[in-house]
């Protein structure tokens, strides 16, 4: 008999979303979303822009 699957990790409490809408000078709408509580996690470390690599050098022929 196989072991029962591990219990799922608990779901952290969901933050409350609020939306603040501003009209830009050219008439377009911009919405700022805020969350309560604020995200306590520090932002992930990102490589500097110059070292980022999205995608790869690609072959020239269609395939």
């Amino acid at each position: 008999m196989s072991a029962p699957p591990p219990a799922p990790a608990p779901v952290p409490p969901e933050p409350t979303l609020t939306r603040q809408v501003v009209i830009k000078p050219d008439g377009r709408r911009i919405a700022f979303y805020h969350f309560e509580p604020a995200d306590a996690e520090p932002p992930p470390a990102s490589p500097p822009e110059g070292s980022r690599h999205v995608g790869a050098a690609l072959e020239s022929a269609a395939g």
Partner: protein
Amino acid sequence: MSELRWNPLLGEWTITATRRQERTFLPPADYCPLCPTRPGAFETEIPTPAFDIVVFENRFPSLQASPPSPTVEGNDLYPVRPAQGVCEVVVYTDRHATTLAEESVERIRRLILVWRDRFAELGARDEVAYVYIFENKGEAIGVTLHHPHGQIYAYPFIPPRIARKLTQAQRHWNATGRDLLGDVLAEEQRDGRRIVCENEAFVAFIPFFARLPYETLLVPRRQVAAITDFDAGERWRLAEILKTLLTGYDRLFGFSLPYIMALHQRPTDGEDYPYVRFHMEFLPPHRTADKLKYLAGSESGAGAFINDTIPEATAPRLRDCCAGG
């Protein structure tokens, strides 16, 4: 100039949007229009020095709430309509050099909450028949801005590929009383070879019929028709599995993988769609680290996809990457 022109050969609308030719193309990081406006620096689209998540109307929209009148006169063969709708940009973070895969599960959950809010608000508008949330990532897909962001198109019609999927789902529902995607999910779970990752609420797999080597479908175990129908637990599990899947994609070839990410939901035209199941579709163009799948003669001219791989071979590799290998 922006208008809808009817294609009688395919029975679908083409959107013209000539102003988009002028849009910002791969600016240097110092002049990214999606970064916050720093003191003393140039004014970006977002007039604050920091923000969490921001959504704004696209400066170069294909669809507009108050569109101009068509520039040409339509007729019975070639109907023409104003390009009414909404095009929004969703900026995931104020940090330029990151990707959704690199963000925390908590931040991804907050993005899901924003998607839910946008779907509810845009879908409630009388002129909006379909709210389409998506992300184009990577130059291989054709992105013009690297700052992590997605888009929302609120169409005044149901787009043709989505309409075709709805027709198939409705046929299956009428014939069996079951939702088609639920049966696809059950078959993928029964077989098991093409499953990439899963949790309590969602399963991701490269479908039996995949058109691209690493195309995946992300499907909820429970039939819900729209992102507004998930409960808080399901939203967290969706954020968790998105983190797992996108991290796995980035491990696949050892670089941040370009993709199209598409959310598929019920239309918002006021009709009933009991046969719809929310799902997300990921379409990475890479077939190897340095080769792309092009939509060439058979795909673009005839609409018949040729996949150079089989999902039973590609899914284990992506599964290993999602598991951390």
